[in-house]
């Protein structure tokens, strides 16, 4: 409902608004739509359209069958899924424990909090990171993609802010009943903060799935490349996916194959996005305003 004091906009204003918002939305939707359509288009569709297809008239999943028939792409998906799942689990466990411990007035709480917040101010740099990862023997290991990202300061702040609002009396009474710190975390804190933990988990998962530079820096072994590096190498840099890397012949149109790679990188995000969107505004605002 329009409030009484608000004058209704002139047609010119309305037109400008519609053009700005509509144009912005189209600029986001159209490229994604074209990529998805082209990945589903038949060879003939692509040849007829001269490269890109807005809407596949003869949809086919041949490009995906080729991609998933093994070889490079299948392995890359396994790698990305592994890194995302294991990384998110570890990162959540570490961040929740640390955020809970520092959300209460405890021994060492203050210095540990400052240790985390300092990471927001200064970055150690690419070369020292590389040398440390190498020193730990993690080069060419998938752990190099997981361990350095296991504690995100922003996610930590969001969780800690939330935990601080859990009333102390609740924890006090549990403690009198003989619950340990770990029990309190498991049985009281975590059930109370399911939603915010889910959001932070999704933020971590998106981060792990999207990570590209870490893999470029730490992994030389192409069989360990995650999806993002495959996307960069075979689509952005345009190296061709040869038959032995995919294990089938004849190959479909390279265009649809490339677009299928793009879609593979996109789909997991599109799947978790509705959940993210429902909760993230709250998470972002808690972190930004009270952090």
């Amino acid at each position, binding site marked *: *409902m*329009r*409030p009484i*004091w608000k*004058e209704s906009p002139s047609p010119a204003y309305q037109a400008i608004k519609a053009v700005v918002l509509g144009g*912005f*939305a189209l*600029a*986001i939707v*159209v*490229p*994604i739509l*074209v*990529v998805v359509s082209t990945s589903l288009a038949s060879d003939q569709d692509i040849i007829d359209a*001269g*490269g*890109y297809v807005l809407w596949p008239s003869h949809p086919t999943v041949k490009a995906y069958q080729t991609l998933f028939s093994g070889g490079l792409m299948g392995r890359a998906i396994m790698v990305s899924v592994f890194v995302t799942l294991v990384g998110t689990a570890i990162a959540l*466990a*570490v961040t929740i*424990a*640390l955020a*809970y*411990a520092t959300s209460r007035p*405890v*021994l*060492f*709480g203050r210095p*540990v909090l400052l240790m*985390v917040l300092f990471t927001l*101010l*200064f970055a*150690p*740099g*690419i*070369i*020292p*990171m*590389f040398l*440390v990862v190498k020193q730990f023997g993690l080069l060419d290991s998938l752990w190099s993609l997981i361990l350095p990202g296991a*504690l995100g300061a922003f996610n930590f702040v969001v969780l800690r802010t939330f935990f601080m609002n859990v009333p102390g009396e609740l924890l006090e009474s549990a403690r009198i009943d003989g619950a340990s*710190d*770990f029990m309190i975390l498991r049985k009281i804190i975590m059930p109370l903060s399911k939603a915010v933990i889910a959001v932070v988990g999704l933020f971590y998962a998106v981060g792990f799935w*999207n990570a*590209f*530079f870490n893999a470029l*820096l730490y992994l030389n072994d192409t069989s360990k490349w995650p999806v*993002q590096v495959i*996307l960069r190498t075979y*689509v*952005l*840099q345009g190296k061709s996916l040869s038959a032995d890397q995919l294990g089938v012949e004849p190959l479909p149109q390279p265009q649809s194959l490339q*677009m299928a790679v*793009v879609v593979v*990188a996109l789909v997991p*995000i599109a799947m978790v996005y509705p959940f993210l*969107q429902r909760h*993230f505004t709250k998470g*972002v*605002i808690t972190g*930004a305003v009270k952090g």
Partner: protein
Amino acid sequence: MVLLMVPGVVFLLAFFYLPVLGNVVAFQDFQPYLGIMHSEWNGFTNFVNLYANPDFWDALRNTLILAGAQLLLFFPIPIGLALIVDSLVSNRVRRWFQTIAYLPHFLSWVLVVTLFQQSLGGAGFVNNLLRQAGLDPIPFMTNPDTFPLLVVAQLVWKDAGWAMIIFLAALTTVDVSLYEAAAADGAGRWRRLWHITLPSLRTVIVLLLILRIGDILSVGFEQFILQRDSVGPGAAEVLDTFTYYAGVVGGDWSSGAAAGLAKGVVGALLLWGANSLAHRLGEPGIFQRRGSS
């Protein structure tokens, strides 16, 4: 409780504070086969060499140009979008727009640059359309002169919608009776915007500006490294890519580390300076002053 902190602290020490100490290689003639313990110390030689290296100055100049373009051209856009969305009366349109506008934030830079390449690249569909219409294709993706604009366009595409959230949230906290009173006193749309809406966004705007300034030297590292090949290092080499190519790719570890350390220190100082400036202007900023509440 102390036990619960152990894993987190171990991670911080191993993958943050240890690398921070590892920056000592910037003061060494570092040789990988000798390691940090046995490489020779050479004081500030690496920094002196950087000072004399024209590539470093190019990278610094590009960093400032690209970061400046992103700061000046990007920053007002989410504010404008938020004002428009906030003025929408229909909740359905608003929700639809938000759903679409937030999505690209969650896509990786590889994906964003790929989508841009497929759309605007030499063989992309925009240039395909131009060719079919008998026009010359436009080299959006490879022209070094327009690279700053391309970079801003990509940032707007990816993050303008997302950056809008915080302004939208701030707009909902504005007291509606202020608007009502102003309208009753005859203030039109623009005067209400100028005297009520923008002042109430001031704190948030300052906060986000500080964060951006602190981040200015690292902006878009993946974005640049992905496009350095197609545009050329002349326009796309920034301090971080310089560090990577000189150090990890080129094997000149110490120069790379020196450039990286210089960047980290300057970035922290910028953040600190911007925050102090905000305090002086009477804004809360991000780091509270000691003793103030």
